[in-house]
């Protein structure tokens, strides 16, 4: 009986080339990536044909949730003098100043609280609760608790208070923040706000016009008539 002699074959696959390719890809992604900022709510911006790109520095982003809650993000220069951390500390001082002008219950912040504020990305709690919110940072798992608060997972109020009825003498807290943004020492930001490139409204496409109108109206009252709306690139047709 003739036995077929099977040739022993090695199944070794050379992975070197594959490894080369993956390392190249990895390098590419590592160098080009900018990470998504953590945001309190996810919104889908409406599609538009506008091709103007969003600016990278010196702008304030107003995030509007479909329920009408508002959070702010302040993006400053990349230079050390106007770094985000420094400007946020200054911003907190300014907003406290503006708040105290019209409220009996004065607020003030300790250096630790200011430091905690400088580390925040998107922020938005009523100013009366801001101290309590910032104190969380020093506690164990403080940032997680802060995130939960700001995302509305606790019973505490999140979002910057805003209302329809307002005038220049009785500003809403949202208006106070925006005014404070304009008053910080970063002149490039103040100029950008004046030109209209410094304020970007990011809202979900299914948000009702009532809410967006309220935000725009609030801005209009404090003479921020020019601003931009964040949109996504339209995919189909024109």
């Amino acid at each position, binding site marked *: 009986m003739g036995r077929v002699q099977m040739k022993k074959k090695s199944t070794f696959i050379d992975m070197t080339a594959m490894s080369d390719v*993956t390392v190249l890809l990895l390098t590419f992604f590592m160098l080009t990536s900018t990470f*998504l900022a953590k945001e309190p709510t996810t919104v889908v911006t*409406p599609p*538009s044909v506008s091709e103007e790109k969003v600016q990278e520095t010196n702008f304030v982003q107003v995030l509007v949730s479909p329920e009408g809650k508002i959070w702010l993000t302040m993006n400053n220069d990349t230079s050390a003098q106007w770094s985000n951390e420094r400007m946020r500390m200054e911003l907190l001082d300014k907003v406290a100043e503006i708040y105290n002008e019209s409220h009996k219950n004065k607020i003030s912040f300790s250096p630790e609280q200011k430091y905690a504020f400088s580390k925040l990305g998107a922020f938005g709690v009523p100013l009366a609760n801001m101290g309590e919110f910032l104190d969380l940072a020093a506690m164990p798992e403080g940032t997680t608790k802060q995130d939960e608060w700001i995302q509305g997972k606790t019973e505490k109020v999140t979002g910057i208070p805003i209302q329809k009825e307002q005038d220049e003498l009785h500003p809403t807290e949202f208006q106070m923040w925006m005014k404070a943004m304009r008053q910080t020492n970063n002149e490039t930001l103040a100029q950008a706000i004046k030109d209209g490139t410094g304020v970007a409204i990011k*809202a979900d*496409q299914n948000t009702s*016009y009532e809410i967006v109108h309220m935000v725009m109206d609030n801005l*209009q009252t404090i003479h921020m008539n020019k601003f931009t*709306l964040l949109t996504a690139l339209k995919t189909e047709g*024109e």
Partner: protein
Amino acid sequence: MAQIETGGGDGKGKSHQKKMSIHVDFTPMVDMNMLLITFFMLCTTMIKSQTLNIALPSNEKVENVENMSQASADDAVTIILDAKRKKGSFDVDTVNGKVVNEVYYFEGKPGGDEGMFDAAGNILSANNNLQKAEFLANNADGTSQGIRKLIQQRNKEVLVEINKLKERFRKEEINQEQYDSLSKKVRRDEKLKKPVIIIKSTNQASYGSLVQILDEMQINSISKYQIDNMTRVDSVMLIDYQNNHRN
């Protein structure tokens, strides 16, 4: 590639070194790299958001109404955005929890020359010149339809000039910079007849539709448009229209 051959010389040597090949297995390395790539791919935002610039008029009270720039009734087109309502009521109708947007428009004054109200303040339905349009993309043959068709008809003179410029740009007679400045000039040209579009929206319409209509302004090179608040007449017309066109 991933192996090193350590040969035993030419064989003449005294020591008979065994021929050895060292394989380095790169498979775990590739595995790890793939994982990292996946991570970076998912966490990266490649496309940056686009922005749409908006300039609202200052809302300071104008003392002297005479000084206000008034759009002549001939040029004015008012577009009203609204959400689709349920049959028989004014509740918002939703599809999968999303509002369906509707767009209405009227040309000139509300109610035409005679107005929407008679001397006693009663609504004159017959004068209602509100019409319904739709947001539609271009037809397959490139012609426009819906609200875009209306806007294009009203802005014909400007669009003819803009298209001439586009043609020149395509033939490379002018560069991008020249095209931008020339098209800007055309849009501002006072001699050309162009509409003034007033955009209004009910509270129930979605923000997406506002961006959509602002887009139409951009697509059709409209130079004069503004976002305004609904007035009483607008609401009356809208409700009157919806009452009359209910199946």
